[in-house]
């Protein structure tokens, strides 16, 4: 119609198939859902793609290090040591081993929320939803968990812990469920609603523990923090000193959740429904599966993972909630998106990519990075660069799909006999 316009004639005349369609387009995947695209990526690359993605990100970030006049290899070694991963080397002894253990315990503490917020994103992905609301769900969980642990001081420890963790998990589920409900009932896109719910959580949380807020510690009116949680709700530390932020049993809870995630998706009827809705909501509906119901459930379960992350952080090592955690530190939930993307929404993948990001964050922190190798004040940015590159490369699956499609088109064209080859000019 128009010149450069709606039907570029040099592209295969998609909207105009010959009405005597010679080859039924069986392999055409029309407008793939996110889950379908992801499945495609998994088939296309398997484990090689995420590893290549991570290596590429490290390589490019290495160039940045080089540009600042430092050695990339030495810097990465320093980050590796800063994360405490050298603890696994048997030849590290003495004081170095003590430091490594201490660093690794800190990395482990970061691993817990990263695994869980990663799962919060991954579970929704499997239902075809993009949960950006991990931060809000984490905040709602941490505020609820804190307050339940502050209240009920007379309860016995295990019961109190169970209560706080359950309340936080349900609060996260509720927060995620709101977005799921809105999607199911009104079609409001979960990306938009979860972002808005994040801000609501940030500011409600800030009000509750901020100056003059109902949950603020009244004994220190000048500090925006909550009261200290009950002593008997502190999670037991199994490695390191409880006073120096050793690794608590929340670590095993997170590992357990990886198993739960995998089992729910693969072995339960709920997971079957979630996955079928994620791949093809139309076929799921035709098979009698409630698409709306699954949208709600998937978002609620996602929120539960994030809410649990909040509870384990407060009961594990923070013990009191401050406004900085609500407003800034909660952004760790955003890293959960990168974790899920790089981990390809599998349990094992989520564990390893969470370990990668936890190590990066901890290894580049100003406390842990050897300042003679790379200035720690710059190193935090390095983490963000790598994280950003990972998201960028993972998000490039559209590009890969695109290239794939072109290849297929060319093959098809070759398969057609020459006389009927559409002439491609202009």
């Amino acid at each position: 119609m128009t010149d450069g316009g709606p039907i570029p004639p040099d592209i295969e005349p998609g909207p105009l198939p010959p009405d005597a369609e010679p080859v039924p387009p069986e392999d055409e995947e029309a407008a793939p859902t996110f889950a379908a695209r992801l499945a495609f990526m998994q088939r296309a690359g398997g484990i090689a793609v995420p590893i290549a993605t991570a290596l590429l990100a490290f390589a490019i970030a290495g160039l940045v290090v080089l540009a600042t006049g430092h050695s990339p290899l030495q810097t990465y070694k320093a980050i590796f040591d800063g994360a405490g991963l050298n603890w696994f080397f048997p030849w590290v002894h003495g004081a170095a081993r003590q430091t490594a253990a201490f660093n690794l315990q800190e990395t482990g503490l970061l691993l817990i929320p990263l695994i869980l917020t990663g799962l919060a994103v991954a579970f929704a992905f499997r239902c075809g939803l993009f949960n950006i609301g991990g931060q809000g769900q984490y905040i709602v969980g941490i505020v609820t968990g804190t307050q339940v642990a502050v209240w009920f001081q007379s309860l016995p420890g295990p019961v109190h812990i169970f209560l706080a963790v359950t309340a936080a998990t349900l609060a996260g589920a509720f927060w995620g469920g709101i977005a799921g409900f809105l999607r199911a009932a009104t079609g409001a896109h979960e990306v938009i609603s979860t972002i808005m719910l994040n801000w609501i959580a940030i500011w409600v949380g800030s009000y509750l523990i901020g100056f003059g807020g109902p949950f603020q510690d009244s004994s220190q009116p000048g500090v925006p923090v909550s009261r200290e949680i009950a002593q008997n709700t502190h999670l037991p530390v199994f490695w390191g000193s409880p006073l120096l932020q050793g690794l608590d049993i929340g670590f095993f809870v997170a590992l357990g959740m990886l198993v739960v995630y995998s089992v729910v998706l693969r072995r339960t009827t709920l997971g079957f429904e979630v996955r079928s809705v994620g791949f093809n909501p139309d076929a799921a509906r035709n098979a009698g599966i409630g698409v709306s119901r699954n949208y709600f459930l998937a978002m609620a379960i996602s929120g539960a993972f994030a809410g649990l992350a909040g509870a384990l952080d407060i009961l594990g090592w923070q013990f009191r909630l401050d406004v900085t955690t609500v407003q800034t530190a909660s952004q760790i939930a955003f890293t959960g998106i990168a974790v899920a993307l790089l981990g390809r929404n599998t349990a094992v993948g989520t564990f390893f990519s969470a370990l990668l990001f936890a190590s990066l964050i901890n290894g580049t922190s100003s406390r842990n990075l050897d300042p003679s190798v790379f200035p720690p004040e710059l190193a935090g940015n390095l983490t963000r660069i790598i994280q950003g590159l990972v998201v960028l490369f993972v998000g490039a699956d559209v590009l890969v799909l695109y290239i794939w499609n072109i290849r297929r088109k060319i093959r098809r064209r070759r398969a057609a006999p020459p006389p009927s080859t559409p002439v491609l000019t202009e």
Partner: protein
Amino acid sequence: MEDATPVLELRGITKRFPGVLANDSVDFDLQRGEIHALLGENGAGKSTLMNILYGLYRPDEGEILLQGRRVSFSSAKEAIEAGIGMVHQHFMLIPVMTVAENVVLGTEPVRGGIFLDERGADKRVADMAKTFNFAVDPEALVEDISVGQQQRVEIMKALYRDADLLILDEPTAVLTPQEASDLFEILRTLRREGISIIFISHKLNEVLEIADRITVLRRGKVVETVPSAGATQKALARAMVGREVLLRVEKRPSAPGEPLLEIQDLHAEDDRELERLRGVSFNVCAGEIVGLAGVDGNGQTELIEAIVGLRRPIGGRVLVADREVTSDGTRKLIDEGVGHIPEDRQKLGLVLDFSLAENLALHAYRKRPESRFGWLLPRRILARARKLIREFDIRGGGPQTRAAALSGGNQQKVVVAREISAEPRVLVAAQPTRGLDVGAIEYVHRRLVQERDEGKAVLLVSLELEEIRSLSDRILVIYEGRIVGEYSSETSEEELGLAMTGGRHAEETEVPA
């Protein structure tokens, strides 16, 4: 008209696709100020011919003469420059832009070198709308106007680029009857202004109403070109459908029992909230196949969706074995024993990224023995899948193979296996053999007859008359959302074709038993 050089002449156009002769030395000509209809069934080669004319395909043989001059287009752009405009079934408009902006897009009037002359554009478009009686506000946003008006914007786009030859591809398929008659008014105005029009359709009444001449295509060949004055629907239907020998399915006479599916005065709307089902009533009894014949878009989709619970009817009732199931939703209907072989197997029938085992378990996953208390039992799911794959002769993979890896015929077998193995009481089969090869078609047909013989009620919806006639024990014809007649399976294709296109004869309608 006769003495002048034709605006367009196609001589001996032949186009082959792998395995298909889409156009077989087609001759076609168009006079100035003429509406020439191109009539034929789906797959007769109409669109291929028009895509050749529009520069999207190259003919293997034959030539195109425009105003007596030989031309050869290698792209749509060249065809447009030569004065050919095409209005596709699916519009290519930008919804957030105004009518005028859409019309001038690509050839915008410019002021002072770079600035879009909006007022100029509006005025030119308004003038054009007035000349041709388009009744479209140039400043309205395209997303706010009706489909009929959007189609007019497409026509205006072509006219704005000085087209004097318009191709309309099934223009009424998306229109309401009122919009269609408005369109015809516009086409008559265009004809008076000397525009030549090719009107593609498979609806006989429309063609007779609007066209000056009619060319009938069947299987890529021109059957005849006749002036519409003096042509009859019956004669056109015969030319369009032909008299091919039928491949008959082996089956015994039916022994219908109790009605298992009852539809009572069903009304339903499509997604545009147009009433597509206008009071449909019929029964399907145990042990019979009832064929529903009709031209695409006469309410079949809405009827199927209403029966299987995908669409909430706005009136009427659906009963399965004397129990009302109207608006019960798909899960309830599956439990009531309604099986559904959907028209679009890749969209509705299968989860392509699931394995065959998962696809075969898509209904049964929530019940024993596939699952217990919400836990899937993979070993049983796999065992059942293996059994069904053997029983239904699904080839190209095992239980763990992804459905997308299978050929169309085998994908359809997966759907058929799942639906039939659920032992439904009522089986709704929509276009069950679309896109399948001969062997798979025969297989699906045999299974449907077998289901009938086992006392199931089978409703077969198809656009293929041959399929309907060879399988059905009774044939219902749907036209514009109503059942317009009931026929025996012996009824000729011509007669059915006539009823399907709205030309019914009251005396041929049997009274339902």
